[in-house]
């Protein structure tokens, strides 16, 4: 302590240094620094006020969940358990033909899959599970074939050839009176278990599915 006292005295004796310009007594920051910091902060705030709403505006659709829409595709008698029948539904409104998609519909068939009952209907999406090209059902071969990269699916939509990573997506179905209605899309695992709809090319099983988190823009699975 004594040492420090001595030093203090020594500095007091030394010729006084002129205080730096802009300092008032007891200040830790010059006015110039204070104004610079305040100016930068105000500028940053002004940028944020413009940039944040703009970015939010652009990314908003990611968090937008769509309304569940159901569309009638005809009387139940139209659909047989042995083969598919094409139906066209609108998945996006207001953009004409590009908002429509073809769906392959059949009646449930316990002979093909014991989990199915004749009271339910299966609607297979034509969106290939590889990269989204439109598959078509070839009744002679009883398979779905994709024209783009050669994906092949069996009668139930399970992959039997080519690059797709999971079975074909499906659409929810419901019966209203004697009419069949088709609802939101869902994806399936390789055991045909429903999961939330994923984009083509994304896995629905194994550890890989954790690479593709669920998106708010898709409907929950049935």
């Amino acid at each position: 302590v004594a040492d420090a006292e001595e030093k203090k005295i020594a500095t007091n004796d030394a010729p006084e240094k002129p205080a730096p310009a802009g300092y008032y007594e007891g200040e830790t920051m010059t006015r110039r620094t204070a104004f610079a910091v305040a100016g930068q902060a105000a500028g940053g705030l002004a940028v944020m006020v413009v940039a944040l709403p703009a970015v939010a505006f652009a990314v908003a659709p990611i968090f937008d969940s769509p309304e569940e829409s159901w569309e009638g595709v005809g009387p139940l008698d139209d659909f047989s358990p042995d083969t598919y029948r094409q139906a066209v539904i609108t998945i996006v409104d207001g953009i004409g033909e590009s908002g429509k998609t073809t769906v392959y519909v059949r009646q449930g068939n316990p002979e093909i899959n014991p989990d199915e009952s004749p009271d339910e209907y299966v609607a297979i999406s034509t969106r290939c599970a590889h990269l989204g090209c439109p598959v078509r059902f070839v009744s002679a071969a009883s398979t779905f074939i994709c024209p783009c990269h050669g994906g092949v699916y069996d009668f139930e939509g399970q992959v039997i050839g080519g690059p797709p990573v999971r079975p074909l997506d499906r659409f929810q179905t419901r019966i209203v009176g004697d009419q069949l209605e088709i609802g939101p899309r869902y994806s399936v695992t390789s055991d045909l278990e429903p999961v939330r709809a994923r984009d083509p090319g994304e896995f629905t099983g194994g550890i890989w599915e954790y690479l593709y988190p669920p998106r708010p823009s898709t409907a929950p699975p049935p």
Partner: protein
Amino acid sequence: MPKLPIPQALRKPSKPGVGNGAGPMDKAKHAPADLVGWVDERTGATGFLTGMLFRKVPKGTNWFYTLGSATLFAFVVQALTGVFLAMYYTPSATEAYASITYLTNEVFMGEFVRGMHKWGASVMIILIFLHMGRTFFFGAYKYPRELNWVIGVVLLILTLVMGLTGYLLPFDQRSFWATIVANNITATGPIAGPYLADFLRAGAEFEATTIARFYAIHMLAVPGLIIALIVAHLYLVVKLGTTAPPWLRAESKPKSLREEKVG
């Protein structure tokens, strides 16, 4: 020689000190020089321009060194034709194809302008890769030009983004399905992929605003970035100079080393 009937004003100017030099014709003759001088006095542009245009280039500079300028020219062609295409194009899923067929078939020279934009896109991609190859094989990416290489790679990626987003705009079957596939490839990226695809499409499916989104990226966002980066790219080229072809360097090295020693 017989005297030609040339008007007085167009004849060879009189020697300095001959005539008074104050007539209107004499003044008019000096107008261009005066104008350049007026601008130069206020901007200092000639110093910058002569430094840029008359900079020294190394021995051995050859035609391969024009690939960068050629890419720039291709970009300028794309920018100009793009502005004119935008005058007729409608970025909407229901009207895009009709507007494209109209501008191709009905508008005077429309097919030509659209053709320049369409084929120019491929030309620009080819040129940018050739330019990159030149830079790589001549070792021109090495110190102190690494940053310019990085800027160049970003420009390459942005050019590919231009190709991708522009491909959708004619909105024919090929455009539509190619964009579906490209979006789904984006979606297969781990963790961020699905959200990025949703961002590009503005939703989970091909949506009503997808074309407008691609159009905004194609004609506003990315071109702005490209122009800014081209300015930076050129600044560094002028600042750092170009490299000699690799086959010349080995030859001149021993000589310059000896000169240094003597000096």
